[in-house]
């Protein structure tokens, strides 16, 4: 690697990282958090088969799982102003990513809720808990624990998908890299560099996943039996 190229790569690093920390990371975390709340709500409503709302959510999941994320971003950011709805770029991205995560994760969580044995709910309501209390304290924690690996898949996908926000004028890591490429003409090295930074973020999440799994492990007999 020539000295010039090395200098470009080194100089780019803090710039890309700053875009990562100020845009990619918050965009990911906020969208994931909102998406998870939405997913849990949708999953519970669909499992309980609450009328109208349940059908509405089914339609929502169908649409958001069945259309490209990039198209959704474009409709929200470039399309909606056509009907007078001007949503700034960052909120547009958060809306699209949250709705997308919500649609995917709701299916994962719904499946997990259905796989919690009926005896768990029966045990709870026989003790006088309401159905909602049974869901909140007993069923959901078990369901979410069971789908931690699948939810982290969604999480990691989201980190990478935030690069799509570059298409709606958001200067996240990828957009930042593109800009640096535009003035330095070193696409190979710089795109590999940003790829490695994404890899770093994804890897951090896999560690977080291991930690979450360990923290929530209550049914491994390896935890000493006195």
């Amino acid at each position: 690697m020539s000295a010039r190229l090395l200098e470009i790569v080194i100089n780019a690093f803090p710039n890309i990282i700053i875009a990562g920390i100020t845009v990619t990371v918050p965009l990911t975390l906020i969208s994931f958090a909102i998406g998870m709340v939405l997913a849990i709500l949708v999953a519970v409503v669909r499992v309980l088969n609450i009328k109208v709302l349940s059908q509405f959510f089914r339609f929502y999941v169908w649409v958001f799982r069945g259309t490209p994320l990039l198209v959704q971003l474009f409709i929200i950011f470039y399309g909606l102003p056509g009907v007078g709805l001007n949503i700034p770029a960052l909120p547009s991205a958060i809306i699209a990513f949250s709705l997308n995560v919500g649609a995917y994760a709701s299916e994962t969580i719904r499946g997990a809720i259905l796989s919690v044995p009926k005896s768990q709910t029966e045990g709870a309501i026989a003790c006088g808990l309401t159905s909602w209390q049974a869901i909140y304290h007993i069923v959901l924690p078990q369901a979410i624990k069971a789908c931690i690996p699948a939810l982290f898949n969604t999480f990691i996908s989201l980190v990478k998908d935030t690069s799509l926000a570059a298409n709606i004028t958001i200067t996240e890591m990828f957009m930042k890299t593109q800009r640096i490429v535009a003035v330095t003409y070193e696409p190979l090295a710089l795109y590999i560099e940003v790829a490695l930074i994404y890899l770093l973020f994804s890897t951090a999440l896999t560690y977080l996943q291991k930690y979450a799994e360990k923290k929530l492990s209550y049914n491994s007999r390896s935890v000493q039996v006195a």
Partner: protein
Amino acid sequence: MIKLQGLYKSYGAKKILNGIDLEVNKGETVAIIGPSGAGKSTALRCINLLESPDKGTLTIGEKSYDLSKLTNKDILEIRKSTAMVFQNFSLFENKTAIQNITLPLIKAKKINKAEAEEIALKNLEQVGLSDWKDHYPSQLSGGQQQRVGIARALALNPEVILFDEPTSALDPEKVQDVLEIIKRISKEQHITSVIVTHELEFALDVADKIVFLTDGRIIEQGTAKEVLKNPKDERTIKFLGHFADKLEYVI
């Protein structure tokens, strides 16, 4: 005191319970026996409304409920005045032994956490599991899990505890432990209870009254000796026939 009158239940066109009348006085233990598929579990689960009865009247203490038109409030009230010990334990897998007991106390009975823990510890001690309080159900043996199940039911201090074959999922060597505990609480604490069981000797030993249920009807009831010495119905005679040698020795 709890009293069931004219309890009917069917699944679709299939009639499961055809008019059950059952009275359990305060402090009494009633054992329900009968062949498999008779409707014993269904009857028990109609009492705490895990199944919804078609019709009948349920009286718990002073209060009577028309089972064909229950409000959500009635249902919650009935569930709060009963507790159940399940064949498969039904402990909360995501909660430790002590949390299994405190959660319903805090959430359903609105008891504060400190007091709930005190009650839970006292009941865990009764079933000999104080040292296991922080273990999750998956870290406990079947016998231990069922003891937690019993402690959870006792802690709720209900009008009646419903036991549905509490020992039939246990290893043979654990059955006696659990039966001993049930017997002890029944005799010493005078807990009002209804026990569905296949353990006939045990039923004879603890039950103040035995009820023989078959084809969704109670066809015989009385004290253990009455039912066992002078069974009137030939279905009872036939059922008891399987246990003849054991019974001879007990009576």
